[in-house]
């Protein structure tokens, strides 16, 4: 068990200060706005839960929320296994490891609006490599006209963009496994799959938890890339939650509703992440009782 030491708080104080400074004050402002009708900077009327009720009553919200859930789950379903597989395939040492690291990391470094823009061209059948290739293979591909194609393109773009995050976390996690474990497994006659199942995967639990939560959160908040690529279309096929709420808030030009929407958004993510986090903790209790934690 970890020793109890209240003095450890001293080590945590700087972090709390940094984050609180950036978070609590603005958050309080948002809460403040969300319960007011701000007609002009001077005229504000307290409206209580008015905006929250308006948001909940909106039918389109359910649709956007549903699309968002499907998208985020699809993202996790593809990126997590792919990221793990990639991390296992990346070389551990030598010049090739540096080269591969750099190549894999590139997609993460491109500003998100540029990502959307590039894929816009990339997916066009007349002037883009992928579009032209798909057309040449006989597909009637159109991410602007066909809802399914749009969905798949947005998903593919996200996979291209963010799988390296999962891969890098897992890669670092794999490197942190001491050689002795592999040596012991070799001595015990373990097969490659057994090594993966009993040594690598358990040791990756920590980083996988981070990867899953991060990707879930970020995909739930995704805005720029799909907005630039499809604008939410065709129709509202790729209008996910953040774009939907931004449309609402911008459309109404109101700080009050916008703030309320933001809070609701935050609470939805908070709830889902909380559930996810606790579920993963329970599944991985072994980790927490290992040397170091327990």
């Amino acid at each position, binding site marked *: 068990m970890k020793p109890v030491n209240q003095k450890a708080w001293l080590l945590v104080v700087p972090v709390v200060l940094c984050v609180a400074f950036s978070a609590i004050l603005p958050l309080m402002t948002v809460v403040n706005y969300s319960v007011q009708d701000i007609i002009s900077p001077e005229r504000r009327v307290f409206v209580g839960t008015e905006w929250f009720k308006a948001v909940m009553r909106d039918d389109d919200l359910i649709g956007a929320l549903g699309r968002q859930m499907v998208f985020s789950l699809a993202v996790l379903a593809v990126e997590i296994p792919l990221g793990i597989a990639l991390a296992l395939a990346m070389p551990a040492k030598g010049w090739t490891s540096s080269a591969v690291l750099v190549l894999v990391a590139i997609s993460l470094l491109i500003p998100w609006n540029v990502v959307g823009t590039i894929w816009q061209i990339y997916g066009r059948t007349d002037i883009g490599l992928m579009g032209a290739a798909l057309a040449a293979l006989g597909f009637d591909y159109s991410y602007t006209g066909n809802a399914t194609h749009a969905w798949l393109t947005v998903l593919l773009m996200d996979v291209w963009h963010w799988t390296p995050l999962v891969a890098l976390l897992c890669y670092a996690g794999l490197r942190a496994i*001491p050689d*002795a*474990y592999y*040596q*012991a497994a*070799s*001595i*015990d*006659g*373990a*097969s490659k799959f*057994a090594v993966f199942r*009993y*040594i690598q995967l*358990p*040791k990756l639990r920590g980083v996988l938890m981070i990867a899953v939560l991060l990707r879930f959160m970020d995909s739930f908040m995704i805005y720029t890339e799909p907005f630039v690529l499809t604008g939410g279309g065709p129709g509202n096929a790729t209008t996910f939650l953040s774009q939907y709420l931004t449309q609402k808030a911008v459309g109404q030009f109101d700080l009050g509703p916008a703030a309320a929407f933001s809070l609701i958004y935050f609470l939805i993510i908070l709830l889902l992440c909380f559930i996810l986090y606790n579920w993963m903790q329970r599944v991985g209790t*072994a*980790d927490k*009782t*290992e*040397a170091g934690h*327990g």
Partner: protein
Amino acid sequence: MARIELDLAHAYGPNPQRDEDYALLPLKMTFEDGGAYALLGPSGCGKTTLLNIVSGLVTPSQGGLSYDGRDVTRLTPQQRNIAQVFQFPVIYDTMTVAENLAFPLRNRGVPADRIKQRVGQVAEMLDMSGQLNLRAAGLAADAKQKISLGRGLVREDVSAVLFDEPLTVIDPHLKWQLRRKLKQIHHELKLTLIYVTHDQVEALTFAQQVVVMTRGKAVQIGTASELFERPRHTFVGNFIGSPGMNFLAACGAADGIEVAGRRLAAPKAALSGLGAFTLGVRPEYVRLAAPNEPGAVPGVVTQAQDIGTYWLVTASVGEGVDPSLLRARLSSEQTIPRVGETVWLSIVGEHTCYYVDEDLIA
């Protein structure tokens, strides 16, 4: 259980020219079947390299080794059927203690009831029978090391068990328990055990034969008393014993030897013909002598420490000519000289050793 013969050298670089290029200088040694050996030496001396060569985790760049006469140089650790316990506990976190112990047997396709029996036996031997169904990850470090050891013992035909400083992360007050357990297991199972450590107490209590190593060279193999009485290398003299051997510069002279500024009778005739050499005598064998006693030199006491069961007295000898410090372990029953007193210390005797260029000559 196997008899392991080594005739090899190892260098990490491609073309070793000088001694420094070698991780292990050429050596030939034999570990007898069922013997308990320790590889003792400071950090970087090559003992872990040697252990890994024996286990198969490293292939020697020159030469080879054999188990029971069979050349195993190119075989993997699994093929050699050895077991290794590492510096920190290596266990399978997701499995219980029983599953951990069963793992090597399951991988070899041993039938389930046989596995259960074997696991029970090994757990019994390690006093872990009550913990078989606990999650291995939640146990303390010493229990985990026992599991690591158990995974090695569970295979009945294991050829040797190798230990790489296994007590490093164990609480000091539990170390002796584990050491005793290892000795017990050795006694019962008569396995070949090879134990790497930098702690001489561990080595000397655990092993029947100790291999003392320094800078890639195995300088002496012997029992604890051999290493103590007749260290074949100044390094051994210094490393073994607490404190280590005293070394005084000496040289041959016409009718005897010159040491610490005194002319003494040559204990062995050959010595008087030598140039420079080193005289080595353990503090345990330095005793107070009468003035001008043959084989004794004068010195001024600089320090006298009461260790409890004995006194450690340090004296400066060879004043003016070749000053050095001489340490003596004196029993508390004697009159202990005080700091500043001049004393005579007998250094030449049957336990004294003589070295030229670090190697024992007499």
